[in-house]
Protein backbone atom coordinates (compact mmCIF):
# COMPACT_ATOMS: atom_id res chain seq x y z
CA UNK A 1 0.00 0.00 0.00
CA UNK A 2 2.68 2.40 1.05
CA UNK A 3 4.62 1.41 -2.04
CA UNK A 4 1.76 2.34 -4.27
CA UNK A 5 1.42 5.69 -2.63
CA UNK A 6 5.15 6.27 -2.79
CA UNK A 7 5.40 5.35 -6.40
CA UNK A 8 2.74 7.88 -7.21
CA UNK A 9 3.75 10.30 -4.55
CA UNK A 10 3.75 13.21 -6.91
CA UNK A 11 0.20 12.63 -8.00
CA UNK A 12 -0.87 11.96 -4.43
CA UNK A 13 0.50 15.34 -3.42
CA UNK A 14 -0.65 17.19 -6.45
CA UNK A 15 -4.05 15.66 -7.13
CA UNK A 16 -6.10 17.68 -4.66
CA UNK A 17 -4.65 20.89 -6.01
CA UNK A 18 -5.10 19.81 -9.61
CA UNK A 19 -8.65 18.79 -8.88
CA UNK A 20 -9.30 22.15 -7.30
CA UNK A 21 -7.76 24.01 -10.21
CA UNK A 22 -9.82 22.11 -12.74
CA UNK A 23 -13.01 22.34 -10.76
CA UNK A 24 -12.78 25.89 -9.54
CA UNK A 25 -10.86 27.57 -12.34
CA UNK A 26 -10.79 25.79 -15.65
CA UNK A 27 -14.37 24.61 -15.59
CA UNK A 28 -15.87 28.02 -14.83
CA UNK A 29 -13.77 29.59 -17.54
CA UNK A 30 -15.04 27.00 -20.01
CA UNK A 31 -18.55 27.78 -18.82
CA UNK A 32 -17.90 31.50 -19.31
CA UNK A 33 -16.77 30.75 -22.85
CA UNK A 34 -20.01 28.89 -23.44
CA UNK A 35 -22.13 31.71 -22.00
CA UNK A 36 -20.23 34.34 -23.95
CA UNK A 37 -21.66 32.89 -27.14
CA UNK A 38 -25.19 33.28 -25.83
CA UNK A 39 -27.70 35.87 -24.78
CA UNK A 40 -28.91 35.20 -21.31
CA UNK A 41 -30.56 37.40 -18.73
CA UNK A 42 -30.49 34.99 -15.84
CA UNK A 43 -34.06 33.93 -16.37
CA UNK A 44 -35.13 30.70 -14.78
CA UNK A 45 -37.73 30.20 -17.46
CA UNK A 46 -35.89 30.92 -20.71
CA UNK A 47 -32.51 29.29 -21.31
CA UNK A 48 -29.55 31.01 -22.99
CA UNK A 49 -30.03 31.57 -26.71
CA UNK A 50 -27.07 30.97 -28.99
CA UNK A 51 -25.88 34.13 -30.75
CA UNK A 52 -22.48 33.03 -32.02
CA UNK A 53 -19.81 35.69 -31.77
CA UNK A 54 -22.32 38.56 -31.65
CA UNK A 55 -21.27 39.53 -28.15
CA UNK A 56 -17.64 39.85 -29.22
CA UNK A 57 -18.60 41.80 -32.32
CA UNK A 58 -20.52 44.18 -30.09
CA UNK A 59 -17.54 44.63 -27.76
CA UNK A 60 -15.19 45.55 -30.56
CA UNK A 61 -17.49 47.50 -32.83
CA UNK A 62 -20.38 48.87 -30.85
CA UNK A 63 -19.62 49.43 -27.20
CA UNK A 64 -17.97 52.76 -26.45
CA UNK A 65 -18.50 52.15 -22.75
CA UNK A 66 -16.15 49.18 -22.92
CA UNK A 67 -13.38 51.18 -24.56
CA UNK A 68 -13.79 54.05 -22.13
CA UNK A 69 -13.59 51.60 -19.25
CA UNK A 70 -10.51 49.97 -20.72
CA UNK A 71 -8.82 53.35 -21.09
CA UNK A 72 -9.63 54.23 -17.49
CA UNK A 73 -8.39 50.90 -16.26
CA UNK A 74 -5.06 51.39 -17.97
CA UNK A 75 -4.76 55.01 -16.86
CA UNK A 76 -5.60 54.10 -13.27
CA UNK A 77 -3.15 51.21 -13.25
CA UNK A 78 -0.35 53.08 -14.96
CA UNK A 79 -0.62 56.12 -12.76
CA UNK A 80 -1.08 54.29 -9.50
CA UNK A 81 1.77 51.88 -10.06
CA UNK A 82 4.24 54.49 -11.29
CA UNK A 83 3.58 56.74 -8.33
CA UNK A 84 3.82 53.80 -5.98
CA UNK A 85 7.10 52.72 -7.48
CA UNK A 86 8.82 56.08 -7.28
CA UNK A 87 7.45 56.85 -3.85
CA UNK A 88 7.98 53.34 -2.57
CA UNK A 89 11.62 53.17 -3.60
CA UNK A 90 12.28 56.63 -2.21
CA UNK A 91 10.83 55.68 1.15
CA UNK A 92 12.80 52.44 1.14
CA UNK A 93 16.00 54.36 0.61
CA UNK A 94 15.07 56.63 3.50
CA UNK A 95 14.38 53.68 5.77
CA UNK A 96 17.45 51.71 4.75
CA UNK A 97 19.63 52.56 7.74
CA UNK A 98 19.92 51.72 11.37
CA UNK A 99 17.72 53.84 13.58
CA UNK A 100 15.76 53.43 16.76
CA UNK A 101 12.19 52.41 16.03
CA UNK A 102 13.01 50.78 12.72
CA UNK A 103 10.95 47.69 13.51
CA UNK A 104 7.99 49.78 14.55
CA UNK A 105 8.11 51.82 11.38
CA UNK A 106 8.19 48.71 9.25
CA UNK A 107 5.18 47.34 11.12
CA UNK A 108 3.28 50.56 10.65
CA UNK A 109 4.04 50.50 6.95
CA UNK A 110 2.22 47.19 6.74
CA UNK A 111 -1.05 48.53 8.02
CA UNK A 112 -2.46 50.10 4.85
CA UNK A 113 -1.97 46.86 2.94
CA UNK A 114 -3.55 44.51 5.39
CA UNK A 115 -6.37 46.57 6.86
CA UNK A 116 -9.70 45.38 5.45
CA UNK A 117 -10.00 47.25 2.12
CA UNK A 118 -13.72 47.87 2.51
CA UNK A 119 -13.20 49.42 5.94
CA UNK A 120 -10.43 51.64 4.67
CA UNK A 121 -12.41 52.62 1.59
CA UNK A 122 -15.34 53.69 3.75
CA UNK A 123 -13.03 55.94 5.74
CA UNK A 124 -11.72 57.43 2.49
CA UNK A 125 -15.27 58.01 1.39
CA UNK A 126 -15.76 60.12 4.47
CA UNK A 127 -12.44 61.88 3.90
CA UNK A 128 -13.59 62.85 0.41
CA UNK A 129 -16.97 64.16 1.61
CA UNK A 130 -17.18 67.77 0.45
CA UNK A 131 -18.90 69.00 3.62
CA UNK A 132 -17.69 66.69 6.38
CA UNK A 133 -14.43 65.34 5.07
CA UNK A 134 -11.02 66.15 6.40
CA UNK A 135 -9.48 66.75 2.99
CA UNK A 136 -11.50 69.90 2.37
CA UNK A 137 -10.69 71.07 5.90
CA UNK A 138 -7.05 70.73 5.01
CA UNK A 139 -7.45 72.55 1.71
CA UNK A 140 -9.23 75.41 3.40
CA UNK A 141 -6.71 75.50 6.23
CA UNK A 142 -3.99 76.33 3.71
CA UNK A 143 -6.21 78.84 1.96
CA UNK A 144 -7.27 76.78 -1.05
CA UNK A 145 -10.84 76.48 -2.20
CA UNK A 146 -12.61 73.21 -1.36
CA UNK A 147 -12.88 70.49 -3.96
CA UNK A 148 -15.72 68.13 -4.75
CA UNK A 149 -13.17 65.26 -4.85
CA UNK A 150 -14.87 62.07 -5.95
CA UNK A 151 -18.00 63.98 -6.93
CA UNK A 152 -16.07 65.76 -9.66
CA UNK A 153 -15.74 63.64 -12.80
CA UNK A 154 -12.52 65.28 -13.84
CA UNK A 155 -10.62 64.26 -10.70
CA UNK A 156 -12.56 61.30 -9.31
CA UNK A 157 -10.27 58.75 -10.94
CA UNK A 158 -7.24 60.51 -9.52
CA UNK A 159 -8.78 60.39 -6.06
CA UNK A 160 -9.02 56.63 -6.46
CA UNK A 161 -5.40 56.55 -7.61
CA UNK A 162 -4.57 58.37 -4.40
CA UNK A 163 -6.34 55.68 -2.39
CA UNK A 164 -4.48 52.95 -4.24
CA UNK A 165 -1.17 54.73 -3.73
CA UNK A 166 -1.95 55.05 -0.04
CA UNK A 167 -2.79 51.39 0.19
CA UNK A 168 0.04 49.85 -1.79
CA UNK A 169 3.10 52.10 -1.75
CA UNK A 170 4.39 50.26 1.27
CA UNK A 171 4.52 47.00 -0.66
CA UNK A 172 7.10 48.48 -2.99
CA UNK A 173 8.88 50.01 -0.01
CA UNK A 174 9.09 46.80 1.95
CA UNK A 175 10.08 44.68 -1.02
CA UNK A 176 12.79 47.16 -1.96
CA UNK A 177 13.98 47.25 1.63
CA UNK A 178 14.33 43.49 1.74
CA UNK A 179 16.30 43.72 -1.49
CA UNK A 180 18.54 46.44 -0.08
CA UNK A 181 19.24 44.44 3.04
CA UNK A 182 20.31 41.44 1.02
CA UNK A 183 22.81 43.40 -1.08
CA UNK A 184 26.49 42.46 -0.96
CA UNK A 185 28.57 45.25 0.56
CA UNK A 186 31.76 44.93 -1.54
CA UNK A 187 30.75 47.00 -4.56
CA UNK A 188 29.64 49.77 -2.27
CA UNK A 189 32.89 49.74 -0.32
CA UNK A 190 34.83 49.83 -3.56
CA UNK A 191 32.78 52.78 -4.73
CA UNK A 192 33.40 54.65 -1.50
CA UNK A 193 37.11 54.08 -1.97
CA UNK A 194 36.81 55.38 -5.52
CA UNK A 195 35.21 58.53 -4.11
CA UNK A 196 31.76 58.17 -5.66
CA UNK A 197 29.17 60.53 -4.24
CA UNK A 198 26.19 59.19 -2.33
CA UNK A 199 23.91 59.97 -5.26
CA UNK A 200 26.22 58.24 -7.73
CA UNK A 201 26.50 55.25 -5.44
CA UNK A 202 22.73 54.95 -5.26
CA UNK A 203 22.06 55.52 -8.93
CA UNK A 204 24.91 53.47 -10.36
CA UNK A 205 25.31 50.66 -7.87
CA UNK A 206 22.44 50.21 -5.47
CA UNK A 207 19.54 50.71 -7.82
CA UNK A 208 20.75 48.34 -10.54
CA UNK A 209 21.36 45.69 -7.90
CA UNK A 210 17.90 45.91 -6.35
CA UNK A 211 16.13 46.42 -9.63
CA UNK A 212 15.18 42.75 -10.14
CA UNK A 213 13.36 42.70 -6.81
CA UNK A 214 11.59 45.96 -7.51
CA UNK A 215 10.52 44.75 -10.92
CA UNK A 216 8.88 41.68 -9.40
CA UNK A 217 6.91 43.83 -7.02
CA UNK A 218 5.94 46.26 -9.78
CA UNK A 219 4.75 43.50 -12.06
CA UNK A 220 2.74 42.13 -9.22
CA UNK A 221 1.23 45.51 -8.47
CA UNK A 222 0.40 46.07 -12.14
CA UNK A 223 -1.61 42.90 -12.25
CA UNK A 224 -3.37 43.64 -8.99
CA UNK A 225 -4.14 47.25 -9.87
CA UNK A 226 -5.88 46.19 -13.08
CA UNK A 227 -8.30 44.24 -10.93
CA UNK A 228 -8.98 46.92 -8.32
CA UNK A 229 -12.54 46.55 -7.11
CA UNK A 230 -13.22 47.20 -3.44
CA UNK A 231 -12.29 50.89 -3.15
CA UNK A 232 -14.03 51.80 -6.40
CA UNK A 233 -17.29 50.09 -5.57
CA UNK A 234 -17.31 51.52 -2.04
CA UNK A 235 -16.22 55.07 -2.82
CA UNK A 236 -17.73 55.90 -6.21
CA UNK A 237 -19.55 52.85 -7.63
CA UNK A 238 -17.99 53.90 -10.91
CA UNK A 239 -19.43 57.42 -10.77
CA UNK A 240 -19.95 60.29 -11.10
CA UNK A 241 -21.43 59.36 -14.43
CA UNK A 242 -19.00 56.74 -15.69
CA UNK A 243 -15.93 58.70 -14.60
CA UNK A 244 -14.43 55.89 -12.52
CA UNK A 245 -15.96 52.90 -14.21
CA UNK A 246 -13.07 50.54 -14.82
CA UNK A 247 -13.45 47.26 -16.68
CA UNK A 248 -13.96 45.36 -13.47
CA UNK A 249 -16.81 47.63 -12.43
CA UNK A 250 -18.35 47.70 -15.91
CA UNK A 251 -18.42 43.91 -16.02
CA UNK A 252 -19.80 43.71 -12.52
CA UNK A 253 -22.61 46.12 -13.42
CA UNK A 254 -23.34 44.34 -16.68
CA UNK A 255 -23.74 41.07 -14.85
CA UNK A 256 -25.36 42.07 -11.58
CA UNK A 257 -27.32 45.20 -12.45
CA UNK A 258 -28.26 44.69 -16.07
CA UNK A 259 -28.54 40.90 -15.81
CA UNK A 260 -26.75 40.51 -19.13
CA UNK A 261 -24.92 37.39 -18.14
CA UNK A 262 -24.04 36.39 -21.70
CA UNK A 263 -22.56 39.73 -22.64
CA UNK A 264 -20.80 40.01 -19.28
CA UNK A 265 -19.17 36.64 -19.96
CA UNK A 266 -17.80 37.89 -23.27
CA UNK A 267 -16.49 41.04 -21.58
CA UNK A 268 -14.96 38.86 -18.92
CA UNK A 269 -12.97 36.80 -21.37
CA UNK A 270 -11.71 39.91 -23.10
CA UNK A 271 -10.68 41.37 -19.75
CA UNK A 272 -9.08 38.06 -18.86
CA UNK A 273 -7.12 38.10 -22.11
CA UNK A 274 -5.97 41.66 -21.48
CA UNK A 275 -4.74 40.89 -17.98
CA UNK A 276 -2.94 37.77 -19.12
CA UNK A 277 -1.34 39.47 -22.08
CA UNK A 278 -0.08 42.28 -19.90
CA UNK A 279 1.16 39.80 -17.30
CA UNK A 280 2.93 37.76 -19.95
CA UNK A 281 4.49 40.83 -21.54
CA UNK A 282 5.77 42.24 -18.27
CA UNK A 283 6.98 38.85 -17.09
CA UNK A 284 8.89 38.19 -20.31
CA UNK A 285 10.30 41.70 -20.12
CA UNK A 286 11.51 40.83 -16.67
CA UNK A 287 13.04 37.58 -17.83
CA UNK A 288 14.80 39.38 -20.66
CA UNK A 289 16.22 41.90 -18.24
CA UNK A 290 17.32 39.24 -15.80
CA UNK A 291 19.25 37.26 -18.41
CA UNK A 292 20.99 40.26 -19.93
Amino acid at each position, binding site marked *: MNDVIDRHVKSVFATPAVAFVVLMMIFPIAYTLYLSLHDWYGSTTSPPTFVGVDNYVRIFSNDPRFWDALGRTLLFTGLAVSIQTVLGVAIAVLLHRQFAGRGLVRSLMLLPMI*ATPVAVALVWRLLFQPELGLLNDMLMAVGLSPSAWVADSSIALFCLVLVDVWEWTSLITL*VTLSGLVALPTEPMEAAVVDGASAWQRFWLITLPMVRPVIVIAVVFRLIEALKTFDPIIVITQGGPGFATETLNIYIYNTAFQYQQLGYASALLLVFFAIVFTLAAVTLSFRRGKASS
Partner: protein
Amino acid sequence: MMTETQQQARRAYRRRALVRTAGFYLLLAFVLAPFMFVFLYMVATSFKSPLDINSGSFTLWFTPTLDNYRDVLLGTDFLAFTVNSLVVAGCSTLIALVIGLPAAFAIARYKMPRLGAVILSSRITPGIAFLIPWFIIFSQVGWIDTYQALILSHLLVNLPLVTYLMVSFFEDFPEELLDSAAVDGASAVGTFVKVVLPVTRGGIASAAILGFVFSWNNFLFSVVIAGRDTRTLPVAVFEFMSYGSINWGAICAAATVMTLPVIVLALLVQRHIVEGLAGGSLKG
Protein backbone atom coordinates in the same frame (compact mmCIF):
# COMPACT_ATOMS: atom_id res chain seq x y z
CA MET B 1 44.69 65.36 26.17
CA MET B 2 42.47 67.18 23.77
CA THR B 3 43.16 70.57 22.42
CA GLU B 4 40.54 73.28 22.41
CA THR B 5 40.01 72.99 18.64
CA GLN B 6 39.63 69.22 18.80
CA GLN B 7 36.97 69.61 21.43
CA GLN B 8 35.23 72.23 19.40
CA ALA B 9 35.32 70.07 16.32
CA ARG B 10 33.92 67.16 18.23
CA ARG B 11 31.14 69.26 19.72
CA ALA B 12 30.30 70.63 16.30
CA TYR B 13 30.29 67.13 14.93
CA ARG B 14 27.95 65.97 17.70
CA ARG B 15 25.69 68.90 17.07
CA ARG B 16 25.61 68.16 13.40
CA ALA B 17 24.85 64.49 14.08
CA LEU B 18 22.07 65.53 16.38
CA VAL B 19 20.62 67.87 13.79
CA ARG B 20 20.89 65.18 11.19
CA THR B 21 19.13 62.62 13.41
CA ALA B 22 16.41 65.09 14.25
CA GLY B 23 16.07 65.89 10.58
CA PHE B 24 15.79 62.24 9.74
CA TYR B 25 13.05 61.63 12.28
CA LEU B 26 11.23 64.72 11.11
CA LEU B 27 11.36 63.46 7.55
CA LEU B 28 10.27 60.03 8.74
CA ALA B 29 7.27 61.49 10.55
CA PHE B 30 6.45 63.51 7.45
CA VAL B 31 6.52 60.37 5.33
CA LEU B 32 4.61 58.19 7.76
CA ALA B 33 1.93 60.70 8.66
CA PRO B 34 -0.14 60.34 5.47
CA PHE B 35 -0.15 56.58 5.85
CA MET B 36 -1.21 56.69 9.47
CA PHE B 37 -3.67 59.55 9.53
CA VAL B 38 -6.38 57.49 7.85
CA PHE B 39 -6.31 55.11 10.79
CA LEU B 40 -6.20 57.94 13.26
CA TYR B 41 -9.15 59.52 11.51
CA MET B 42 -11.07 56.25 11.55
CA VAL B 43 -10.51 55.64 15.24
CA ALA B 44 -11.15 59.26 16.21
CA THR B 45 -14.39 59.40 14.23
CA SER B 46 -15.53 56.15 15.79
CA PHE B 47 -15.52 57.88 19.19
CA LYS B 48 -17.35 60.98 18.01
CA SER B 49 -20.97 61.93 18.35
CA PRO B 50 -22.88 62.79 15.16
CA LEU B 51 -22.79 66.40 16.29
CA ASP B 52 -18.99 66.44 16.37
CA ILE B 53 -18.78 64.68 13.01
CA ASN B 54 -21.23 67.04 11.35
CA SER B 55 -19.68 70.12 12.89
CA GLY B 56 -17.75 70.51 9.68
CA SER B 57 -14.17 70.66 10.80
CA PHE B 58 -12.00 67.89 12.06
CA THR B 59 -10.59 68.12 15.54
CA LEU B 60 -8.92 65.73 17.91
CA TRP B 61 -10.43 67.61 20.83
CA PHE B 62 -13.84 66.21 21.50
CA THR B 63 -15.69 64.37 24.21
CA PRO B 64 -15.32 60.72 23.30
CA THR B 65 -18.45 58.61 23.28
CA LEU B 66 -18.92 54.87 23.09
CA ASP B 67 -22.36 55.27 21.50
CA ASN B 68 -21.14 54.27 18.05
CA TYR B 69 -19.67 51.05 19.36
CA ARG B 70 -22.85 50.34 21.27
CA ASP B 71 -24.91 50.97 18.11
CA VAL B 72 -22.74 48.68 16.06
CA LEU B 73 -22.16 45.86 18.51
CA LEU B 74 -25.61 45.76 20.10
CA GLY B 75 -27.81 47.45 17.51
CA THR B 76 -26.91 45.15 14.62
CA ASP B 77 -26.24 41.45 14.25
CA PHE B 78 -22.56 42.22 14.49
CA LEU B 79 -21.83 39.04 16.39
CA ALA B 80 -23.49 36.95 13.68
CA PHE B 81 -21.47 38.70 10.98
CA THR B 82 -18.30 38.09 12.95
CA VAL B 83 -19.15 34.41 13.31
CA ASN B 84 -19.82 34.21 9.56
CA SER B 85 -16.48 35.82 8.82
CA LEU B 86 -14.72 33.49 11.25
CA VAL B 87 -16.34 30.35 9.86
CA VAL B 88 -15.63 31.26 6.25
CA ALA B 89 -12.08 32.46 6.83
CA GLY B 90 -11.28 29.59 9.21
CA CYS B 91 -12.64 26.78 7.07
CA SER B 92 -11.29 28.09 3.80
CA THR B 93 -7.85 28.52 5.34
CA LEU B 94 -7.92 25.01 6.75
CA ILE B 95 -8.88 23.52 3.41
CA ALA B 96 -6.30 25.67 1.66
CA LEU B 97 -3.65 24.17 3.95
CA VAL B 98 -4.81 20.61 3.38
CA ILE B 99 -4.73 21.04 -0.39
CA GLY B 100 -1.97 23.59 -0.64
CA LEU B 101 0.74 22.09 1.58
CA PRO B 102 1.18 18.86 -0.39
CA ALA B 103 0.92 20.76 -3.64
CA ALA B 104 3.55 23.24 -2.52
CA PHE B 105 5.80 20.37 -1.47
CA ALA B 106 5.33 18.71 -4.83
CA ILE B 107 6.14 21.93 -6.64
CA ALA B 108 9.21 22.55 -4.50
CA ARG B 109 10.57 19.02 -4.30
CA TYR B 110 9.43 17.24 -7.43
CA LYS B 111 9.86 20.22 -9.66
CA MET B 112 6.37 20.61 -11.01
CA PRO B 113 6.61 24.09 -12.43
CA ARG B 114 3.52 23.70 -14.55
CA LEU B 115 1.36 23.05 -11.52
CA GLY B 116 2.99 26.07 -9.95
CA ALA B 117 2.28 28.19 -12.99
CA VAL B 118 -1.36 27.16 -13.05
CA ILE B 119 -1.82 27.99 -9.40
CA LEU B 120 -0.04 31.30 -9.86
CA SER B 121 -2.27 32.05 -12.83
CA SER B 122 -5.24 31.95 -10.50
CA ARG B 123 -3.72 34.90 -8.72
CA ILE B 124 -3.37 36.75 -11.97
CA THR B 125 -6.93 36.02 -13.11
CA PRO B 126 -9.36 38.76 -12.17
CA GLY B 127 -11.61 37.50 -9.39
CA ILE B 128 -14.68 38.52 -11.32
CA ALA B 129 -13.78 35.95 -13.97
CA PHE B 130 -14.47 33.27 -11.39
CA LEU B 131 -17.29 35.09 -9.70
CA ILE B 132 -19.78 35.24 -12.56
CA PRO B 133 -19.66 31.57 -13.58
CA TRP B 134 -19.58 30.47 -9.97
CA PHE B 135 -22.48 32.68 -9.13
CA ILE B 136 -24.53 31.00 -11.86
CA ILE B 137 -23.46 27.52 -10.85
CA PHE B 138 -24.06 28.13 -7.15
CA SER B 139 -27.45 29.58 -8.07
CA GLN B 140 -28.41 26.45 -9.91
CA VAL B 141 -27.49 24.15 -7.06
CA GLY B 142 -29.12 26.47 -4.53
CA TRP B 143 -25.86 27.36 -2.82
CA ILE B 144 -26.16 31.13 -2.82
CA ASP B 145 -26.06 32.34 0.77
CA THR B 146 -24.43 29.19 2.10
CA TYR B 147 -21.15 28.67 3.90
CA GLN B 148 -19.95 26.01 1.47
CA ALA B 149 -20.24 28.37 -1.50
CA LEU B 150 -18.44 31.13 0.34
CA ILE B 151 -15.70 28.81 1.52
CA LEU B 152 -15.15 27.41 -1.96
CA SER B 153 -14.97 30.88 -3.46
CA HIS B 154 -12.58 32.10 -0.78
CA LEU B 155 -10.34 29.14 -1.55
CA LEU B 156 -9.65 30.87 -4.84
CA VAL B 157 -7.98 33.59 -2.81
CA ASN B 158 -6.42 31.41 -0.16
CA LEU B 159 -5.06 28.44 -1.95
CA PRO B 160 -2.69 30.24 -4.31
CA LEU B 161 -1.49 32.39 -1.43
CA VAL B 162 -0.79 29.46 0.87
CA THR B 163 0.76 27.37 -1.88
CA TYR B 164 3.05 30.08 -3.07
CA LEU B 165 4.25 31.01 0.34
CA MET B 166 4.90 27.40 1.27
CA VAL B 167 6.84 26.61 -1.91
CA SER B 168 9.58 28.92 -0.75
CA PHE B 169 9.64 27.34 2.71
CA PHE B 170 9.80 23.85 1.25
CA GLU B 171 12.53 24.81 -1.19
CA ASP B 172 14.64 25.88 1.76
CA PHE B 173 13.96 22.63 3.57
CA PRO B 174 17.27 20.90 4.50
CA GLU B 175 17.91 17.98 2.14
CA GLU B 176 19.70 15.96 4.86
CA LEU B 177 16.57 15.61 6.93
CA LEU B 178 14.72 14.11 4.00
CA ASP B 179 17.58 11.79 3.19
CA SER B 180 17.92 10.51 6.72
CA ALA B 181 14.18 9.87 6.85
CA ALA B 182 14.46 7.92 3.62
CA VAL B 183 17.31 5.89 5.08
CA ASP B 184 15.11 5.07 8.06
CA GLY B 185 12.64 3.60 5.59
CA ALA B 186 9.89 6.15 6.06
CA SER B 187 7.42 6.53 3.20
CA ALA B 188 7.26 9.79 1.30
CA VAL B 189 3.90 10.66 2.77
CA GLY B 190 5.08 9.64 6.23
CA THR B 191 8.17 11.81 5.86
CA PHE B 192 6.05 14.72 4.74
CA VAL B 193 3.70 14.41 7.69
CA LYS B 194 6.19 13.47 10.40
CA VAL B 195 9.30 15.33 9.35
CA VAL B 196 8.57 18.10 6.90
CA LEU B 197 5.44 19.58 8.42
CA PRO B 198 6.72 19.83 12.01
CA VAL B 199 9.95 21.46 10.90
CA THR B 200 8.15 24.05 8.78
CA ARG B 201 5.38 24.76 11.27
CA GLY B 202 6.48 28.36 11.58
CA GLY B 203 6.01 28.85 7.89
CA ILE B 204 2.72 27.02 7.97
CA ALA B 205 1.47 29.27 10.73
CA SER B 206 2.40 32.31 8.67
CA ALA B 207 0.68 30.94 5.62
CA ALA B 208 -2.40 30.13 7.64
CA ILE B 209 -2.59 33.57 9.17
CA LEU B 210 -2.09 35.24 5.85
CA GLY B 211 -4.76 33.09 4.25
CA PHE B 212 -7.11 33.89 7.08
CA VAL B 213 -6.51 37.62 6.74
CA PHE B 214 -7.16 37.58 3.01
CA SER B 215 -10.34 35.65 3.39
CA TRP B 216 -11.48 37.92 6.20
CA ASN B 217 -10.85 40.94 3.99
CA ASN B 218 -12.45 39.52 0.87
CA PHE B 219 -15.32 41.53 -0.49
CA LEU B 220 -15.84 40.74 -4.17
CA PHE B 221 -16.89 37.12 -3.71
CA SER B 222 -18.78 37.70 -0.50
CA VAL B 223 -20.84 40.63 -1.71
CA VAL B 224 -22.47 38.44 -4.33
CA ILE B 225 -22.47 35.00 -2.76
CA ALA B 226 -23.23 35.84 0.88
CA GLY B 227 -26.87 36.51 1.67
CA ARG B 228 -28.63 37.48 4.82
CA ASP B 229 -27.70 34.29 6.65
CA THR B 230 -24.02 34.34 5.82
CA ARG B 231 -23.13 38.03 5.50
CA THR B 232 -19.50 38.50 6.34
CA LEU B 233 -18.27 41.65 8.04
CA PRO B 234 -17.14 43.66 5.01
CA VAL B 235 -20.41 42.95 3.22
CA ALA B 236 -22.47 43.78 6.29
CA VAL B 237 -20.76 47.10 6.81
CA PHE B 238 -21.09 47.98 3.13
CA GLU B 239 -24.75 47.04 3.00
CA PHE B 240 -25.72 48.73 6.21
CA MET B 241 -24.60 52.20 5.38
CA SER B 242 -28.02 53.40 6.32
CA TYR B 243 -29.94 56.04 4.46
CA GLY B 244 -30.80 59.50 5.66
CA SER B 245 -27.93 60.92 7.60
CA ILE B 246 -25.18 58.38 6.98
CA ASN B 247 -23.99 57.40 10.42
CA TRP B 248 -20.27 57.86 9.86
CA GLY B 249 -19.45 57.32 13.51
CA ALA B 250 -20.98 53.86 13.46
CA ILE B 251 -19.33 53.04 10.15
CA CYS B 252 -15.96 54.02 11.55
CA ALA B 253 -16.62 52.00 14.70
CA ALA B 254 -17.49 48.97 12.61
CA ALA B 255 -14.45 49.54 10.41
CA THR B 256 -12.24 49.73 13.48
CA VAL B 257 -13.62 46.57 15.01
CA MET B 258 -13.35 44.74 11.71
CA THR B 259 -9.78 45.84 11.04
CA LEU B 260 -8.36 45.29 14.50
CA PRO B 261 -8.07 41.48 14.47
CA VAL B 262 -6.52 41.57 11.03
CA ILE B 263 -3.89 44.03 12.13
CA VAL B 264 -3.02 42.02 15.22
CA LEU B 265 -2.74 38.79 13.26
CA ALA B 266 -0.79 40.36 10.48
CA LEU B 267 1.76 41.90 12.78
CA LEU B 268 2.52 38.40 14.03
CA VAL B 269 3.72 37.36 10.61
CA GLN B 270 5.09 40.64 9.36
CA ARG B 271 7.93 39.41 7.24
CA HIS B 272 5.90 36.87 5.32
CA ILE B 273 3.18 39.30 4.45
CA VAL B 274 5.35 41.05 1.94
CA GLU B 275 6.36 37.71 0.51
CA GLY B 276 2.76 36.58 0.28
CA LEU B 277 1.62 39.84 -1.24
CA ALA B 278 4.36 39.96 -3.80
CA GLY B 279 3.41 36.58 -5.18
CA GLY B 280 5.77 34.49 -3.11
CA SER B 281 8.51 35.32 -5.55
CA LEU B 282 10.72 36.94 -2.96
CA LYS B 283 12.90 35.24 -0.50
CA GLY B 284 14.66 36.37 2.57
